[in-house]
């Protein structure tokens, strides 16, 4: 799997959300995107998944053009995603949410569905099996039949991960997977991310403000500021990049960012 993004540009009225952003993601790579709030990280995800149409640029996945396709077609190409603000189907149960991720893999028509025969029946059973495996994997067995609406935040995030994994994607987009989580939950999520890569070999792009997580897990990091790519490299390189420190990590303002910086430095 390779993702190639070239010269992506996106504008909303007076806001240049992305300007000439280029990067690529290699097979099995865990690629991170960081940057200040409003830098355009989520916008990149939205372009990748077809929610936004960039003004210019190109995106290809394994050579297939991604741009110009509708989101559902992109999903079929193999791009799955988690959202920054949880976008679960509140009235469905955990199981149905995850099963919905199987949508693109279920091949039967509405008529067969109505009669529940043949392909439809078999496909549904297979989907159930697949879903149960994921439920096991993500430790969601206890809430399997709960409507997701009333679940706590951390569990919802996990359901969202499950739903994305159910799509058997080639590329997984994670938008702030550990925001709002405590240390313990963050550890869980980190473990899942590592397992996904190790066991399933799915490439991932992760947007996250938790620098510890990003620096620990990412193979390469791209830093955005005001829609522009200001840095790209390994965690170590990025951390030393003065532009990054100024714009994002906050080293330029020693007083305000002291604590974070100290924590980061303690580990490098």
């Amino acid at each position, binding site marked *: 799997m390779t993702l190639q993004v070239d010269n992506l540009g996106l504008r909303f009225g007076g806001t240049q959300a992305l300007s000439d952003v280029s990067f690529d993601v290699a097979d099995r790579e865990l690629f991170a995107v960081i940057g200040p709030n409003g830098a355009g990280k989520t916008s990149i995800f939205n372009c990748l998944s077809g*929610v936004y149409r960039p003004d210019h640029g190109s995106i290809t996945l394994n050579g297939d053009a991604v741009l110009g396709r509708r989101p559902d077609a992109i999903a079929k190409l193999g791009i799955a995603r988690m959202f*920054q603000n949880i*976008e679960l189907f509140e009235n469905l149960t955990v199981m149905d949410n995850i099963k919905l991720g199987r949508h693109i893999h279920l091949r039967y028509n509405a008529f067969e569905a109505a009669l529940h025969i043949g392909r439809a029946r078999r496909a549904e059973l297979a989907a159930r099996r697949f879903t149960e495996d994921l439920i096991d994997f993500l430790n969601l067995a206890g809430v399997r039949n709960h409507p997701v609406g009333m679940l706590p935040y951390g569990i919802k995030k996990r359901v969202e991960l499950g739903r994305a994994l159910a799509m058997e994607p080639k590329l997984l987009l994670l938008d702030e997977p550990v925001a709002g989580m405590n240390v313990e939950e963050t550890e869980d999520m980190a473990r899942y991310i590592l397992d996904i890569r190790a066991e399933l070999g799915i490439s991932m792009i992760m947007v996250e403000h938790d620098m510890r997580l990003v620096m620990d897990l990412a193979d390469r990091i791209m830093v955005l500021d005001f829609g522009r790519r200001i840095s790209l490299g390994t965690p170590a390189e990025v951390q030393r990049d003065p532009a990054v420190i100024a714009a994002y990590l906050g080293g330029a303002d020693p007083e305000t960012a002291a604590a974070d910086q100290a924590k980061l430095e303690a580990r490098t």
Partner: protein
Amino acid sequence: MIELLESLVRGVGLGGMYALIAVGFVIIYRATGVLNFAQPIFMILGTYISFTIVDTLGLPFPVGVAGAIIAVAAIAMGCERAVMRPMVGRPPFAAALVTIGLFAAGLVVTAKLFGPSVITSGDPWGLGNFCIGGERPADAVEIPGIPLPCQDGLAINYTDIFKIVTAAVVIGLLGAWLARSRYGLAMRATAMDQEAAMAQGISAGRIFSLSWAIAGALAAVGGILVGTAAGGVAAAAALVALKALPAIIIGGLDSIKGAVIGGLIVGVAEALTKTYQPDAAPWLGANFDVVMPYVLMFVVLLVQPYGLYGTKEVQRV
């Protein structure tokens, strides 16, 4: 030309009336997110109360107007308190269905109030009109109480002027107040996210009551205008209020400006269709004017899925 101008005046008058009712719909929608199908009942109650005050009690017309406004506003507030408050936070169409239930029960009650008779809101103008640029024929046989025709000129009914002026003044004042007072913003905030609005110190209950009272008052004024019909109205005239529905969609559900413009578009389109369609396009079938507003609504929605001035829903992931 005269025919066109006369149609236009009638259309604007009608449009003003629709605009009043449409604004009522919009106010409630903006504050509570509910489309209030009981609005027709408030409207016809306005007609009835004004009739009772003017005709039965023999008081002056302005007293009838004031009485109708106050009474209907109070009734609307009562309805909100009794059945709509528990619906807070439920899907909009569930709430809409409850207002439909109110509407159904209200129809029975108003039909009972009206009895078999036909009433007017007691306006002092009747069929009176004035003549611009023409003259009253000297030789015509006069029917007492009916003005002579206006030859080669433009005859304008006082009631149409009344409609236009009332609508302009009422909506103008309301619009100014909403724009200037913090309640305008508070109403929309409450509709958008009730809990967040409450967290800002907005009393959601007061906002709901207020919006229903305003909508009730507007409907009452609309009802008084409807009740100026030459032949009077029966309880079924309540349904006229539903003509404001295409108007608010054309204008955009949450926009007062849109409601006014939508109301005018519907009124004028209806009047022009009534005047010209029977000759110009008879193949569209009789009474095409009834569906004309909806045809316009389709056209608008094709181009603008949120009406002309409606706020596009923010969708962001």
